[in-house]
């Protein structure tokens, strides 16, 4: 969240940032009733799972909700080597002493922040087990290494994100984990919403260009089954719009933002460029 004081660029700050009065709201365009659902879940402090493809607004939504609900947000990007120590904390050597340092999850639990575990599926299974006790009625975090437990702050809430693509065939969350969450499905926004997003994210972009970008993006998404791991995301469209705004011609902007990053397959790239050129032909 943007604050006037703390957002000094290039200076580290604590991961738990209490919201300030003069924070600016992050921009988010609701697609359906996700805001209401999240608010309801928050009222009951139920854990939430955000499901959807990459680049469709999950993280932005959460930032927005955290702002609305005036809670600090702690984000952890999960990866294959993420262990429970990375989440809960570890002993570090400082001077001649061994000091315990809380991990981000523990900090969030103590401070009553919203903890966001992004792409939880990637993490090692010993880390997902940690959240089991946090996500049921116990709301308790166990720190095995210290032999202690913490009952979560009453404002603590856990949110995870989850991208159902085929790479999760083997690496899926156990059903017992999934059932502990309220799940909100995200998908790429409807045409008019996506256009609005583009216009808001890239001020100064001509409306016509936004129309064309969204139309081209929607058509490219139809190619997903032909070998793309991920379809064209809204984020890619925003990048393209930014590049156009910066002075690049539309076809090149689309190529570098929408086509090149997604695929190395020559024919797929050709098909996508055909779509782009059909929409942007001079």
């Amino acid at each position, binding site marked *: 969240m943007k604050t006037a004081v703390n957002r000094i660029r290039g200076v580290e700050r604590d991961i738990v940032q209490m919201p300030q009065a003069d924070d600016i709201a992050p921009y988010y365009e609701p697609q359906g009733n996700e805001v209401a659902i999240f608010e309801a879940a928050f009222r009951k402090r139920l854990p939430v799972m955000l499901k959807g493809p990459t680049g469709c607004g999950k993280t932005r939504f959460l930032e927005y909700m955290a702002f609305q609900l005036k809670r600090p947000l702690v984000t952890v990007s999960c990866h294959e080597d993420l262990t429970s120590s990375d989440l809960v904390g*570890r002993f*570090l050597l400082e001077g001649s002493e061994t000091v315990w340092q809380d991990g981000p999850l523990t900090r969030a639990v103590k401070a009553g922040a919203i903890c966001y575990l992004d792409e939880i599926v990637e993490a090692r299974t010993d880390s997902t087990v940690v959240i089991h006790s946090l996500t049921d009625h116990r709301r308790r975090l166990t720190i095995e290494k210290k032999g202690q437990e913490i009952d979560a702050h009453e404002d603590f809430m856990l949110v995870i994100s989850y991208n*159902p693509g085929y790479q999760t065939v*083997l690496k899926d969350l156990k059903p017992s984990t999934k059932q502990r969450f309220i799940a909100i499905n995200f998908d790429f926004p409807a045409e008019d919403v996506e256009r609005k997003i583009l216009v808001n994210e890239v001020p100064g972009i001509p409306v016509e260009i936004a129309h064309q970008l969204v139309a081209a993006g929607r058509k490219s998404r*139809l*190619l997903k089954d*032909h*070998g793309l791991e991920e379809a064209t995301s809204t984020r890619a469209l925003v990048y393209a719009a930014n590049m156009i705004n910066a002075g690049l011609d539309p076809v090149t902007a689309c190529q570098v933002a929408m086509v090149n990053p997604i695929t190395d397959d020559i*024919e797929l790239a050709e*098909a996508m460029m055909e779509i782009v050129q059909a929409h942007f032909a001079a």
Partner: protein
Amino acid sequence: MTSTARQTAISSLLNELKAASFVAHREVEQVLPVIQPHGEEVTLAWIDACRRIFDFDREAGKAFIRGSSEAEKISETVLPWTEQALTFMRWRGSWRALEGFMANLPRAYGTLGHAGERRWAAIGFMWCARQIESGSAFFGTPVLELSGRQGITGIEQLNTPAEELFESRKLLLGTYLSGAIRVRNLLGAQAILPWALRGADIMQSGRIRGEAYFRLESEESLALLLEHLPGYRLTDRNRLLGMLLDVWFGAGFDLKESSWSPEKGRPFMETDGRSLFFPAVMPNRDEAVLSVLHAAGHMRFGTFDRSSMKQMFADAWVDFPASGPVSWAPLFIRYGEDALRFQLIFDLCEDLRVDFRIQHLVPNYLRRLLATARATGTRHPESGVYFDLALASIEEALAATHPNAVRGKRFGVLLDPSSTVADAYRVACTIYSNDELPHIGDLEAFYAAYLPGRGPNATRLAHPQEKKDQQQTEAQGEQQGESQDQGEGEDQTAQNAESGDQQDGGKREEVAGYGDSSGTAAQAAGRQDAQQHGASSDKGVPYPEWDYREARYKRNWSWVQEKKLSEANLSETHRLMKQYADALKRLKKAIQSQKPTRLAPRLRQMDGDDMDLNAVVSFIAEKKAGRSPNPAIYRRREMRQREVAVTLLADMSTSIMQHLPEGGGRLVDRVRAGVLLFAESMEEVGDNYSIAGFCSKYRDNVSYYTIKNFDEPLSENIRSQIGGMSGRLATRMGAAIRHATARFEAVTSRRRLLLILSDGRPEDYDDGGDRRYLHEDTRMAVKEAVAKGVHPFCITVDTMANQYLPQIFGPGHYMVLDHINTLPKKLPEIYFRLRR
């Protein structure tokens, strides 16, 4: 000789001729006036030649005499070609060559000049000397064809390879020549030698095959031609075209290669309302893309709509058949010789109607069409008018896309979204009767009149479609095409039908009786069943089957028998290993670089799960000594790779035996290669894996062929079994999945993956024609597998799989391979992506 002596000699010769043949003498007398102006000596020499050649061979003599006046006229000489003609007397049976020589003389002089003519004759004589038939072939071929409008150089181009081939392979000129000319015309002179060398090789392996190659009748020669033809190769790119169709029109288009070859003239895309047929090569990419979109537009926007077609036929007072394919010919026959003209106009109108509709789907389509058309070079002199008219119609259409545009009078009707092909016909009739457009008689002019992306619409029998019926109807076998009035041949392509013997095999087995799975059909490749002996043999393992209509399981309904593959083909295995050696090498390297080789824990880490005692001690000691040691005192436990066990289950039903539409073998070849590469990669990776195949005939005969068990090493025997994999019978996938799942119980790894390699729907002979039945059962089998901790993932080469796989396996749990040829390489890749 004095003049008198000469004259006496002349008359005596003439008398001898008269005695030999009255007709010949008379003809000589007719030609004489032309020869005489050259002088008495020349005349004497010529008549002498007439007599001698006539004596040598009557036909030759006649040919000589008859051809002399033209020859004299164009060359303005007599002696040179007379002497050449005399040369023929050296060889027996050369009269045909002489005939050809005389017939070609005028052209030879005309296009090659005197020096060229001499060289031409000299080459021909050399051939006569080698083999007289070759000489006849040489002289019999029109000089213009030989030279290819490049004078004597053109002839040399053809001749040099021919001479070499005669020396080395005894290839006769007659066999070689016409094909070589065509190759030269289509691909240029540099293509002749490689083509000819290849042909000579083929000749060695079989005379008949070789000769077919040289006559450009064999597939191999056509394939070579197409390979070297300049332009955009659609065969290699049909995946891209399929993707574009998918994106703009939605899935459901059947793309097939037509039998177009370069001598058929300009390449076009065709459709019959049911499928799209593309030529192997088109001039450039833009034209190819426009063609594919345009042809799909015909299918989508009602050119083949049954009721509209019926209306159109009614307007033309022609009968419209109630069912089955429809010929366009009756609509055009009435115009007799003017049929081409009418067809051009009709196509122009219908194409306009379709293109206008396409514009609403594909942004900037019309503009692109215009730009590509305008970039075309010169117009054909005869039909350029039509081309320009078509351009004008597109401009009109483009104008009509703007809001509040006023529609033109001529084509306005067609720019209405509700217009049909019948409207196009009416408009065409109106334009035709106005009679302002020129007559077209020539096929080349006809073809040149079409804008890029468009083509003649009525080249195939039409299969009228019902409004809702956008899907392919079941193949009833491809119909033979009827030729147009102009004698344009119908293209025939083989459907994706099973090869003949497979079809017979299937039918025969159906008739052979219930429960007879041991393959008593004549084609049986000797796959042995362990259960063949003993009537009371083990019926196999029973599994329940899900009946979706009754929403319940039928207990012990399907029976799976475990069998061993008895077919083994080690040489095939070796051939495949060689063919894919590069791919395998790359795969192995990739695997090796990914392998985590840490079996020991990593010590002295900045961070870890436990403390590294040695490092701790050093740390404290150094601290006490007053230094600032590195606080790397932890150790990480070893990286345990996720244990995965995988079963590769290959569909071995009869459909994998079919030949690939783009040629290059059969699907089963790719399957074998894929399984082989997979096995080799798995050996490298070290994961526990098993390989099996399945097929079925009725519910109680599901054959499960375990090619390799878990924990079994990959032996030569297993490799050769993979090389011998073949397909027969049907695909009862649900039962096979259940069995494969059951076999996982022997395995203790945490992750279990069931990779299913498929080429089509689950189906069997006894599903009563209800596709959904086995689909639903397979879906349940997949669910059961997941419940047992086995994750199924389906890899299919059926491009229509999007219609049924998502419901069976779930979104994200299958993959469609657009290009069958990528199967061998992709199979291992997919596995690695999944297991990560």
